[in-house]
């Protein structure tokens, strides 16, 4: 059975007052991850294939073509896990 861990390489809390969360997806799966996320999240705007500014379930985040995403205002780990599950599975 496929789960979130199959797509996620690392999750890093950013250093700074913002307390953003950076999700680094597995490099070999980044294209699949981007395609899956773009299908489910709402695209506010995009710049070529470099950055996608997205929202999902009132959470805004930026997805980068390198397979990294920065999530803002995430309440806790559980919320992040739920959103990643929704977006990826």
């Amino acid at each position, binding site marked *: 059975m496929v789960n979130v861990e199959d797509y996620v390489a690392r999750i890093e809390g*950013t*250093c*700074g*007052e*913002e307390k*953003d969360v*950076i999700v680094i997806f597995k490099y070999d799966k980044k294209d699949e991850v981007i395609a899956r996320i773009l299908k489910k999240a709402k695209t506010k705007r995009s*710049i070529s294939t*470099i*950055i996608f500014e997205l929202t999902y379930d009132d959470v805004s985040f*930026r997805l*980068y*073509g*390198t397979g*990294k995403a*920065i999530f803002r205002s995430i309440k806790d780990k559980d919320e992040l896990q739920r959103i990643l599950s929704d977006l990826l599975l």
Partner: protein
Amino acid sequence: MLDPYKIREDFPILKRKINDYPLIYFDNAATSQKPKQVIEAIKNFYENHNANVHRAVHTLSQEASELYENAHEEIAKFISANGMEEIIFVRGTTEAINLVAYAWGLHNLTKDDEVIVSLMEHHSNIVPWEILSKINGFKIKYAEVNDDGTLNYEKLESIISKKTKIVCISHVSNFSGVINDVKKLAKIAHENNALTLIDGAQSVPHLSINIKDLDADFLAFSGHKMLGPTGIGVLYGKQEILKDMEPFQGGGEMIREVSFNQATKRCSITWNDLPWKFEAGTPNISGGVGLMEAVKYLKKIGMENVKTHECQLTEYALRRMQEQRNIAIYGPKDVSAKCGIIPFNVKGLSSHDVALFLDNYGIMIRSGYHCTQPLHQIFKLTSSARASFYIYNTREEVDRFIEVLKEIEQV
């Protein structure tokens, strides 16, 4: 003059591509890249000389001991110390500062004493003193920073007193690159019978250091920021102070003798000579060998050339960055007062977005607090992006960096 293009040939990692773009490494204040000479020296140690140091009679141990001692001597010469007795190998700057806090501070600071720390310090020169003050009860006084990120010397002089026992200041700020006048600070401290601990993490890799001229009592720095491997750093201490200090950690190597006394049913211990008294356990021998090679590499280039190159590159980068409307740069812009570190933000974007965007193009910078949260509070910043340069960075890399920064304006 330093030729960065020739130097680059010695750094295998700089041939890498990230996301199909040539790697541009501007995160040198966090750690430097390693030349093949350092990598080879470590490899050669493990392939040909690996053994534990000291107190063995076999050939390999003698070779390893000689290399490890030579590494201490080489570092002593690099900073113009009196000899290897004043050079203690530690894991890095953080451990060096903790060593001073616990081996000197724990035994010499009381509730009536004061310690001065500046607000521009890296957390590693704040946290050990805050922890220790909870144990010993001494007071910490923070030296203020001016609006441009420079140290306020007048205010510092106004808070120093006969109660002050040690002044702990960074030589170069890891946030703004500001160079502090540590010679002046040492003089002020000594006039008040206080010691000085200088955090040299951002100065020793970039400036020519003569510790006798600076007259600081302690100097802490890391090998990995100056082309050496991670896990090796240095605490310089004046011999007469180190001699009187208690050991930091106990174990093998740091003792001369441990004898069991039948009458007291206890062991009596005598300490080893300097610097080994402060190097408990099997040390990071290959790290020392790698650091020695890094120092030889820097000496060959010449530290004055290192400084000149970084000044020129920083001046160029600052000029180009100031041409951009949406970039805010912090700290002084006069390169004669700073090292090659540029903290900045792009208006409307978080520093992490800037770092992620640059990463797309193979450009590595740091984002966040850079372990200087109090200084960010002074600048009223939630975080910042930081570009930092070293000997292998070029003007073309700065041009590319600016090009990508211009693209960020679209975001």
